[in-house]
């Protein structure tokens, strides 16, 4: 409507800038808000800690120590803290990508936890059954099994969505509960329960475990090598992020996924099969989730399947990771690092300064609020360049785009900035 009064952006601005500057600026624009949100959240968190009777500076020192291995004054070994953080980042990153790929197609996958469990089950089965195979064969097989398990579980969602229109939020939540019960069945007096135990399976053998970054024998940074659990799983996850970026930016499939996420009608116009794309997207999302499960079994510190996996929050934290990272590979990597570090740091914070690690959850929430609400926009009056870019995940613009089409606004970008 009114926005149709806004003509195209003046060309002078464009003519002067080279594509590199433009690209850099875009990266900067994308990063400025999340970074600002984090800073803001820490300020609010400091107030909370002070109110709870803690010392914010000491708390944040402990948090930074646990998270990044810096400012460690409690006798912690920085390298060990970094190793722990890497261990936490790995599944968060992997699962964050799973959520992200679905968001890109306009699908809200709340079912990563269930898909991850299926992946872990499949991976454990392969790890135990084929234990005699050498690592170079077994580990890829185990990961593949995880991928298959996760993709299978998410594929059900995709097929139901594509052919019956069943809403993915409902189906993923339902399948989560089915997965929890399947896990219980297998591990509690079930076929996968370890003979002399309960609630857990046998661990997968050495051959099925991912090589760790630091050798398991000997002393490193004053600590036994076995204490460092960070494995090459982080490289698998980072490689997955690379694949994700490549898929989204450089492939026709990624192009089609993004198109479907923005407008199904437009996708049909372009000859894209919406059904097929939804199914394929869910398969990819589930594959990432299943790989997360595989990484949790082959990497990490526990190499067995455990029933408490149903209370594990990785699949849900991943939603926050993906949202914070705005479903872009680099964003998901950065926010997984942040969330992994916050989690690891929270544990140290509690042990060092006795500030409940649950303050970390409040910090995470404030970061998300601040990002979503774009509080920094209020600074816009003073700093006109800040906060113009809508801080909105790619996949969720579809509805807005549709609305804008309806009301005939042509200058939505300006509109968002104005709003």
């Amino acid at each position, binding site marked *: 409507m*009114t926005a149709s*009064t806004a003509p*195209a952006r003046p060309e002078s601005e464009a003519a002067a800038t080279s594509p590199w500057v433009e690209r850099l600026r875009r990266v900067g624009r994308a990063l400025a808000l999340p970074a600002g949100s984090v800073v803001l959240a820490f300020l609010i968190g400091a107030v909370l800690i002070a109110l709870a009777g803690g010392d914010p500076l000491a708390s944040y020192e402990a948090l930074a120590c646990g998270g990044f291995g810096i400012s460690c004054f409690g006798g912690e070994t920085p390298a060990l803290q970094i190793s722990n953080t890497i261990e936490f980042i790995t599944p968060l990153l992997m699962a964050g990508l799973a959520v992200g790929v679905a968001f890109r197609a306009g699908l809200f996958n709340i079912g990563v936890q269930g898909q991850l469990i299926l992946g872990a089950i499949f991976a454990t089965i392969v790890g135990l059954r084929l234990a005699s195979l050498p690592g170079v064969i077994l580990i890829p097989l185990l990961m593949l099994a995880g991928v298959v398990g996760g993709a299978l579980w998410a594929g059900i969602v995709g097929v139901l969505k594509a052919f019956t229109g069943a809403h993915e939020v409902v189906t993923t939540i339902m399948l989560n509960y089915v997965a929890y019960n399947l896990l219980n069945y297998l591990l509690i007096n079930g076929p996968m329960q370890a003979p002399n135990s309960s609630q857990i399976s046998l661990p997968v053998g050495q051959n099925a475990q991912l090589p760790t970054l630091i050798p398991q024998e000997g002393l490193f940074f004053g600590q036994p090598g076995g204490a460092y659990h960070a494995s090459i799983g982080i490289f698998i996850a980072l490689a997955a992020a690379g694949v994700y970026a490549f898929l989204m930016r450089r492939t026709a499939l990624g192009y089609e996924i993004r198109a479907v996420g923005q407008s199904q*009608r437009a996708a049909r116009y372009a*000859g894209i099969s919406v059904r097929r794309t939804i199914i394929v997207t869910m398969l990819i999302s589930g594959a990432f989730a299943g790989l997360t499960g595989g990484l949790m079994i082959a990497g990490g510190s526990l190499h067995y399947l455990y029933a408490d996996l149903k209370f594990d929050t990785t699949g849900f934290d991943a939603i926050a990771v993906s949202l914070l990272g705005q479903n872009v590979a680099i964003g998901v990597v950065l926010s997984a690092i942040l969330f992994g570090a916050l989690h690891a740091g929270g544990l140290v914070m509690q042990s060092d300064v006795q500030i409940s690690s649950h303050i970390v959850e409040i910090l995470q929430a404030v970061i998300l609020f601040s990002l979503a609400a774009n509080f920094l926009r209020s600074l816009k009056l003073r700093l006109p360049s800040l906060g113009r870019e809508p801080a909105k995940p790619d996949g969720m613009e579809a509805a807005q785009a*549709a609305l804008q089409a309806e009301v005939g606004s*042509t200058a939505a970008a300006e509109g968002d900035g104005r709003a």
Partner: protein
Amino acid sequence: MSTEVRADRPAAPGGEAPYAIEMRHIRKAWPGVVANDDVNLTIRKGEIHALVGENGAGKSTLMNILYGLLKPDAGEILINGQHAHISGPRDAIVRGIGMVHQHFMLIPVFTVGENIVLGREPVENGDFYDRSEVDTRIRALSDEYGLHINPDARTGDLPVGLQQRVEILKVLYRGADILILDEPTGVLTPQETHDLFAVLRGLVRGGKTIIFITHKLKEVLEISDQVTVLRRGKVIGTVRTKDTNEEEIARMMVGREVLLRVDKAPAKPGAAALRVEHLTVNTEQGLPAVRDVSLELYAGEILGVAGVEGNGQSELVAALAGMLKPRSGRIWIGDRDVTEEGARHTRHAGLAHIPEDRRGAGLILSFSIAENTIFGHQRDAAFALRGMVLRLHEIYAWARRLIKQFDVRTPSEETPARALSGGNQQKVIVAREMATQPKVLLASQPTRGVDIGAIEFIHRRIVEQRDAGAAILLVSAELDEIRSLSDRIAVMYEGKIASIEPPDVPEERLGLLMTGGGGRQTHPAAS
């Protein structure tokens, strides 16, 4: 009942104030754009005042300010000579202002009655919606103004003309004295337009004041008493309709001489490029839309499809483009039967398609222009290795070429399509669809909502394509566009082709054909 509605409005100051509305020094700016720049507008009581200007001239912004939807940065508004602070539509309604929006403010899933009374609902027993009272009131209102409608019909099921009637009733129901109509005729047939004008004249006789926003100059001359022209957010001037003519208003709007006719040589039709036999298509909801249509489209000609919106044109185009599966019948492009091929392969067979819904289908607004220039071709070998990995270098080069050739005004090929004006967005689509040198081009509402400069440009390109040997199917709600571009005109009515006419067919005959051959178009809900 209308007395009750009027009761809570401040009493009009009597006859001494000659102006219904005075807007003084209105300014409204967005970052980087001044939509209204020191605008003064004066509307006399009881007149029909036309507000004209190109898309983006600031007409809608001005009227949204008057209606309280937008806050001006500066300026003041007087209504009936009194200063009015309008901070929302509620204030505007209380002061007797009503607005019929270009994009209807109707809720498709609500009944006609619910839409009309929304915001002023009669209630019983506390807060319960009183349906029988609603029916009574609407009947009374319909009788008073001769606007008949069934209050219990589902609004989304009505044809556009009737939806507009609902909008007008909505405004009248609120007891408006000053009616703003934003581009009301864009979606109407000549007959419906004619009827609308009769209604408007009746309203003015009954003491109402009307502001009429349009870009159709003929209508301005036909209906208005005064004309105010806006250009780039500024008032260019206000003239009495009697003292002006089409050319002058056009010049004021655009700021230069405008060619109102399209120059083209006579068509040299070749072989049939598109053949359709006994095509029957349902809407996505499964309702019959196209019924047993057969036609041949020849290389080197433009076949215009005229018709009231909702008579199957959209579905015909969608079926031809492979977006909708026909229920029966066959479609050939050249010798190739593409009936079952789907959009992707139909495109490969040589078909290009400028869709009617630019933002909803033709573009992905968040995608860059470069990405949009391969939309639909994303798996073509030229842009994707083995149809999988995008060749970004080629895509960017391609985009830069199209931007240059089609004069798309954009900072760079990486700019998101969202940031472009409507005209430039449309140019991106036109560029993409024409650049493949299609055998068949479906152009659906190719100039809707774009400025005059872009319209001229797009018309010229369509004729160029024809002269280069493409077969063009042009669907448009603008009869002028159809008549000036087409070599033949097909009229669609209720899913069938009622007739195929020469381009110089009288407008009256077209109108007649569009409404079923003679009688007024009637809809069950209208009785």
